C-alpha cells in the first residue's frame, strides 16, 4: 500500500543574510494511511519545517514530498494543519472561525443547517460550549487551542497535521485535551501527524514515534508503539511496556541532544 505521505531524501536550507541554516538533512520517512504518527525532537530541529513541507506551504530544497504517491507541487488541500502559532482569525467569533473551512470550495454547497450542526457538534466535542460568540482575544490560550482543534476537525480532512498543539498548556489541561483528541480520532481511520516535545505525550498517543536529531534534522529512531487501543491517556503511562518505550526513545533523544550541544 502506498503511504499517504512520503518524504524522499528531503533537505531544506534557509538563508538568513549570508548565513545558511540547515533545517533538514536527508529525511527519509513515510506516514501510513490511518496511523497516528508522533514526531519528537529538540527545538529547532526542523519539525515545523517538515509539517510546512507536508502542507505544501514550502518547497523542498532537495528531495520531494509525495502525497498518495504523487509529488506535491502546490498547497496540499487534503490536509488540515494546526500550526504552532495561534492562527484563528481575530475578527471572527469562535463559531465563525470553526465554520470557516465549511465556507470554502465544495463544502460551501453543504446545506446551511448541516454546516451549523457540524460546527455545534465540534464546539461541544472540544468543550467550548457557551463561548460560541466570543472573539479569540477574549479566550484563554487553552481555549484558543481547542477552537483550532475544532476548526481543523470540522471538515474531516484525510490527514491532520498538528504542531505542538498542547505545547504551552498546563499538565492537567494537556491530559484532558489529549483524551479529547484520541476520542475524536480513534476509529475514524484518518491519519494524524503530531509534533511534540513531550516524549510521554508521544508514546501515549501514537502508533509510531519518530525521533529527530538536532539541527539539521535527521531521523534518529523509529519506534512502533504497540499499546492497545482505545487508550486511556490518564492510565496508559502505567501500562506494562510504556517504560521500555520511554527508555529506548529517551536514549535516542538524549544522544541527539548531547550530540547537538557541540554544534
Amino acid at each position, binding site marked *: 500500500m502506498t503511504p499517504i505521505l512520503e518524504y524522499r531524501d528531503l533537505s531544506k536550507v534557509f538563508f538568513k543574510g549570508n548565513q545558511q541554516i540547515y533545517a533538514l538533512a536527508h529525511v527519509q520517512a513515510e506516514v501510513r494511511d490511518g496511523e497516528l504518527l508522533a514526531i519528537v525532537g529538540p527545538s529547532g530541529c526542523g519539525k515545523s519545517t517538515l509539517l510546512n513541507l507536508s502542507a505544501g506551504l514550502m518547497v523542498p530544497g532537495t528531495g520531494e514530498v509525495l502525497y498518495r504517491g504523487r509529488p506535491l507541487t502546490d498547497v496540499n488541500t487534503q490536509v488540515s494543519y494546526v*500550526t504552532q502559532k495561534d492562527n484563528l482569525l481575530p475578527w471572527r467569533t469562535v463559531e465563525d472561525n470553526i465554520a470557516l473551512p465549511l465556507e*470554502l470550495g465544495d463544502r460551501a454547497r453543504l446545506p446551511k443547517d448541516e454546516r451549523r450542526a457540524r460546527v455545534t457538534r465540534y464546539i461541544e466535542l472540544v468543550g467550548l460550549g457557551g463561548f460560541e460568540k466570543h472573539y479569540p482575544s477574549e479566550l484563554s490560550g487553552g481555549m484558543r487551542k481547542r477552537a483550532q482543534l475544532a476548526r481543523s476537525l470540522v471538515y474531516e480532512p484525510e490527514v491532520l497535521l498538528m504542531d505542538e498543539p498542547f505545547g504551552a498548556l498546563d499538565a492537567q489541561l494537556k491530559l484532558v485535551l489529549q483524551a479529547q483528541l484520541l476520542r475524536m480520532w480513534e476509529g475514524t481511520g484518518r491519519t494524524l501527524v503530531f509534533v511534540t516535545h513531550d516524549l510521554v505525550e508521544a508514546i501515549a498517543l501514537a502508533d509510531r514515534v519518530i525521533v529527530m536529531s538536532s539541527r539539521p534534522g535527521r531521523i534518529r529512531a523509529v519506534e512502533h508503539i504497540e499499546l492497545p487501543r482505545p487508550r486511556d491517556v490518564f492510565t496508559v503511562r502505567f501500562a506494562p511496556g510504556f517504560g521500555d518505550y520511554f527508555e529506548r526513545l529517551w536514549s535516542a533523544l538524549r544522544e541527539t541532544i548531547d550530540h547537538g550541544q557541540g554544534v
Partner: protein
Amino acid sequence: MTSVETRPVVDEVFLVDPSIKARRRQTVIVIISRLVLVVVGLLGWELASDRLVSAFWISSPSEIWSALLRFATNGQLLPAVWVTLAETAVGFVAGAVAGILVGVIFGVSPLIARILDPFLVALNSIPRVALIPLFILWFGIGFQTKILFAATLVFFPVFLNTFSGARDVDRDLIDVIRVMGASRVDAVRRVLIPSALVWVFAGLRMSIPFALIGAVIAEMFTSNEGLGYLIAVTANQYDTAGSFASLFVTTALGLLLTWGVSQSERRVLRWRA
C-alpha cells in the same frame, strides 16, 4: 484546617471595582473640563470684543448667534448645509471606494504595485486645488466638480492606508486558509480585507474632514451654493459674524461626520478588545 470557599461570586463586582470607579471619575472630569473650556473661551471672546479688539475683526459670540438665527430663519442655512453634506458624502464614498479598490489591488499584486507606484506618487504630489479650474472646465460649476474634488482629497489617505493594511496581513493566516482549500478570491475576501479593515478605517477617519474641506473649497471657487459659498459671500461683504456663523456650522458638520465614521468603525471592529 483550611475551609473551601463556597460563597457565591459577587454579582455587582463592577460597582465596587476601584479601576472601574476610577475610569468613571475620569470621564466626568473630562466632560466638565471641556464644558468649562468652552464657556471660558466664549466668555473671553465676548468680553474682548470691542474692548480689546474691534468687533469688525473678531465679531462676538452673541452677534454670531444672531447671524446664525438670521440664516436659519431666512432659509439660507438649511439648503446650504444640505448641499454641502450631499457633496461631502458622495465625494467621500467615491474617493473611499476607489482608494480601497486600488489599495487592495496593490496589496494583492506586488507587480501591479511596482508598475504603478511612480504614477501614484506623481498624482499625489499635484497641488489638488490647482485641479479645480480644470474640473470646472470639464464639468461646469455643478455637483460633479465638487464631488470629484472632494474625492481626490479622500482617495490618497484611504488608498495608502488600505495598501499598508493589505501588506501588513499575517501571511500565516493566508497560508492556513489556503490549506483549507480557499481560492485566491476567498483569501482576499475572508482574510486580506477583514485584516486590512483596521487600517482602512484609520484612513477613513483621517479623510472624512478632507471630504468636507474639498466640498467647501470647491463651493468657494464655483460660488453658487453651499456652506463654502456662504463663507465666501459673507466674508466679501465684511460680515464677520456671518462668516464665523457659517464656519461654525461647517465645523459642527465635520465633527458630526467624524463621529459617524468612528461609530461605524466601532461596530465593524468590535472584535478588537
